[in-house]
């Protein structure tokens, strides 16, 4: 099967496949330690799991060579043959481009080799994502196909299902789509209306309903569909539960609406998909009947980390283009590049790109460790950080370009439009912040249960302990979590930054404890608090990632590692002060915290459903 799948592929892919077999064989035994606690969750308790993040994950030389050989042709294809402007204008990816993508094997990057895919590790997938993202429409099409569309089959499919569907999906003969969103249901699984009922002979499910905003909905021939089914509980009661199905277009009764007209990623195909009495064989239930919720969650959680590298790839290209402009455009007999305000923007872009790249590859490296570590918080953080940085940086780049950034003749406005979707899809950033904060707080809350209970019951020793701890903190005790010093994980040139990280982590854990003590499980309702917790955590993770990466670069002696140190120090200092501010906002009765006022304003605006203030020119008399 594997040979058959690879047969169609280009020589580069085949080479990569061969090398990767050798690599997996050699790599796996190296990591034998049992999967430890996920890094981000432990930050909530004030611990830095150094094992997880230091040293920065590396790939072997063989793997690197192979991936570079593979990256070459893909990059050549994207720079020379893909006409992004045309794709954007016509709202369609040309067929020959799609064919070429298929022949490069890009439709089955993460499909295991035995099913004809490339079987790339997460790290290599991230590396390829950097190049694919040079055209956002293609990147989204491919991501919808393999990061969510066929991911369900890889994660939850049975052997038969994998053997039946994956080869054709990996080769690109079939395109996959992920059908979850409905008119009434975004992230709310309870309001899914699509229904699958078991037929009389119990061999089929009959599927009815509509899904909206399905990427690849018009191209796909295999759909992962989530629908409500009746499930008999253990205690005999009948309940509606979500079940995942693999639905082929050939099952009949599937119609797709006309492609939506979108702001960005216009080349990707997004449309409604309607199912009308589609008969799905019972063998096509993905996972268990009634287990669709877990399947959906796993699929969504698994795909996010790659956005970091993709955006970084896009940003690197953007920096090149913008710098070219800034160094050639003359105003007042000086190049734009000589103006401080322009220089600042490039520093920002470089810094953001560096941080998100570090976060993405750190997460990918964690995910590549054996034992399926749960890095969903980390992946969500990468997604939030990179999407927001992308929007900010593209906007700054446009600012550098001035008027030409706004013109359709140049690619910049397209990049701006394309990058807006990043904050919205794969879980909006708001929702992901809730996820990041709540998952961490759940972890910390469980571990701190005993302590919180003692404090609440007024256990004298615990209270005294806490008070003395706080007093010591307030007296300016320096925190040492062992990142620096002799045999420290962080290089001495970033000692200050490492101390800042340690200080932040320590304060953060104290704040988390206080928050849990104050709000307990009702913290779910405190979304503004949760947002800050998530922001702090994202910063902490970013700091860790850059420290780890820059330390490695120095020690390995990579080119321009001093530049990396600069970027790392800048980011760490900025993030440190941001964190301090956010932490002080989280204090009770903090003067920096305007939540109550903000809530009042929004309440009044929403009550009126309009801007409330009188016009400045109005008079009472």
């Amino acid at each position: 099967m594997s040979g058959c799948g690879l047969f169609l592929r280009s020589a580069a892919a085949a080479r990569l496949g061969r090398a990767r077999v050798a690599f997996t064989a050699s790599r796996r035994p190296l990591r034998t330690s049992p999967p430890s606690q996920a890094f981000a969750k432990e930050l909530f308790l004030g611990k830095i799991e150094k094992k997880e993040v230091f040293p920065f994950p590396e790939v072997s030389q063989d793997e690197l060579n192979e991936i570079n050989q593979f990256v070459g042709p893909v990059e050549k294809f994207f720079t020379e043959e893909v006409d992004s402007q045309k794709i954007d204008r016509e709202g369609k990816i040309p067929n020959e481009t799609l064919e070429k993508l298929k022949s490069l094997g890009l439709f089955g990057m993460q499909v295991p080799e035995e099913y004809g895919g490339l079987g790339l590790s997460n790290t290599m997938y991230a590396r390829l994502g950097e190049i694919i993202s040079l055209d956002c429409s293609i990147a989204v099409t491919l991501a919808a196909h393999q990061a969510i569309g066929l991911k369900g089959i890889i994660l939850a499919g049975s052997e038969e299902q994998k053997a039946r569907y994956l080869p054709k999906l990996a080769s690109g003969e079939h395109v996959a789509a992920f059908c979850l969103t409905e008119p009434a249901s975004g992230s709310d699984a309870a309001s899914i209306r699509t229904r699958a009922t078991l037929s009389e002979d119990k061999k089929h499910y009959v599927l009815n309903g509509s899904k909206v905003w399905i990427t690849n909905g018009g191209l796909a021939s295999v759909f992962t569909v989530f629908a409500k089914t009746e499930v008999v509980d253990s205690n005999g009661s009948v309940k509606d539960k979500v079940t995942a199905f693999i639905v082929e277009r050939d099952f009949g009764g599937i119609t797709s609406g006309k492609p939506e007209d979108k702001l960005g990623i216009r080349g990707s195909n997004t449309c409604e998909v309607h199912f009308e009495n589609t008969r799905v064989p019972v063998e096509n239930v993905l996972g268990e009947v009634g287990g669709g919720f877990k399947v959906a969650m796993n699929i969504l959680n698994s795909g996010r980390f790659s956005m970091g590298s993709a955006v970084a790839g896009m940003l690197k290209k953007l920096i090149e283009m913008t710098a070219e402009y800034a160094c050639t455009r003359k105003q007042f007999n000086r190049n734009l590049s000589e103006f401080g305000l322009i220089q600042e923007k490039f520093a920002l872009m470089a810094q953001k790109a560096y941080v998100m790249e570090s976060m993405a590859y750190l997460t990918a490296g964690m995910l590549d460790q054996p034992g399926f570590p749960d890095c969903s918080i980390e992946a969500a953080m990468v997604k939030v950080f990179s999407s927001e940085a992308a929007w900010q940086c593209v906007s700054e780049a446009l600012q550098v370009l001035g008027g030409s950034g706004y013109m359709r003749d140049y690619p910049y406005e397209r990049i701006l439009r394309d990058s807006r979707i990043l904050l919205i899809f794969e879980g909006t950033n708001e929702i992901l912040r809730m996820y990041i904060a709540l998952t961490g707080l759940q972890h910390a809350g469980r571990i701190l249960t005993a302590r919180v209970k003692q404090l609440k019951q007024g256990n004298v020793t615990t209270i005294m302990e806490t008070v003395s701890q706080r007093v010591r903190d307030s007296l300016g005790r320096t925190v040492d979590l062992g990142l620096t010093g002799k045999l420290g994980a962080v290089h001495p040139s970033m000692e200050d930054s490492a101390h800042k990280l340690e200080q932040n982590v320590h304060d953060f854990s104290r704040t988390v404890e206080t928050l849990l003590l104050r709000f307990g499980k009702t913290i779910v309702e405190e979304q503004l608090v949760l947002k800050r917790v998530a922001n702090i955590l994202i910063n902490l993770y970013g700091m860790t990632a850059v420290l780890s990466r820059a330390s490695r670069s120095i020690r390995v002696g990579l080119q321009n590692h001093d530049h990396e140190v600069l970027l790392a120090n800048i980011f760490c200092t900025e993030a440190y002060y941001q964190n301090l501010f956010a932490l002080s906002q989280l204090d009770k009765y903090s003067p920096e915290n305007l939540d109550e006022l903000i809530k009042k304003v929004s309440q009044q605006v929403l009550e009126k459903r309009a801007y409330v203030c009188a016009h400045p020119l109005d008079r009472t008399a």
Partner: protein
Amino acid sequence: MSWAQAILLARGLSRGWGGICSTALTGAPFSQVTPQAPRGLHCSTAAHQPDSPLVPRPPEPQRGLVKALAPHEELFRQAPDGVRDKASFVQAVQNFTQYNVHKRGHVDFIYLALRKMREYGVERDLAIYNLLLDIFPKEVFRPRNIFHSIFLHYPRQQECGIAVLEQMENHGVMPNKETEFLLTQIFGRKSYPMLKFVRMKLWFTRFKNINPFPVPRDLPQDPVDLARLALRHMEPDLSARVTVYQMPLSKDSTDATDPTEPHIIGIQSPDQQAALAHHDPAHPIFVEGPFSLWLRDKCVYYHILRADLLPPEEREVEEIPEEWNLYYPMQLDLAYGRSSWDDYEFNIDEVEEGPVFAICMAGAHDQATLAKWIQGLQETNPTLARIPVVFRLSPSSGELLASSSGLEEPPLTPPEGREEEENNQQRQQQSQS
């Protein structure tokens, strides 16, 4: 006016001015003026009656007006056939000033004109008020020395000036610069009308938009439009939809006494619709009313469709489904909740009430009309067909008898303890609207 009263007055005046000056100096809110200040003015008007109006009635009692003609009444009767509008009012005032060069009896004339303003429909016209003030002779009543200003100088004229301002106040007319100029010319800066003027200037702006639920100044004449307005006024939910279930038969039959096809207009919000859809058909729901609602000077009546509160044991406990949010946990699995020192909820005794499903306004308050409303509601609320509806219409509620007498049918089953129930409903309505 006796000496004693004059002294009292003078004290009141000085206190009033003192209060204003001190607030102006310190910048403190005006409400901190000593409470005695307005009381001083009360003294001037009627002998220490706490509820008496600020400004005296005109010297002649009103009842006498009907019989004995007030002086200058003939000026307002010059055009018996003519229209009574602003122009004729202005004409009357001008006639007075021309005919009476010495302005004899101008106080009486101003009081008379104030009373006539409503008839001419100029009671909200600032220009007319300024015109009336302009009748006063200038410079005559201004205090010339400190004793003038301590003791009420030309009290009758000052009170008349206050009466003009008072009427402006009652009609919500804000005085302008011209008014101020006139008042300073007539009475000077340190006088009661000026005090009144300053107070109006201060408080009018603050009170003008104090009502968070403003009613338009001119209410629509069409009962359908009026009902629409009233329903919107009562319903807090902005996504509620007003439905006209039945238009009045003929356009001109604006009175509510047309028995055949009175208008029926209802309002229902999506939340109410959902609540009605979830209502258990085993429990009846009630049409109750009429309840009154005042919109400015108009009283309208409405009916509600409501249910009794479910007994606690039958209520469904709203629980968070296990598999609900695809992205983040909706509840944390922790054993402890919010600590008491972060619980800012006040301890409020809440009286729970049954849900209100819809409100309607109809031209008639009988069961047949309201049944049509229920029929109309069934189109958007299919479950309503299966729920028994009980009509609990009270035969009278205040002015209702006067406005649509004879239309009221006695309720089918007058339940016992009605009064108590009605009280409850009234309370409920108050909280609803």
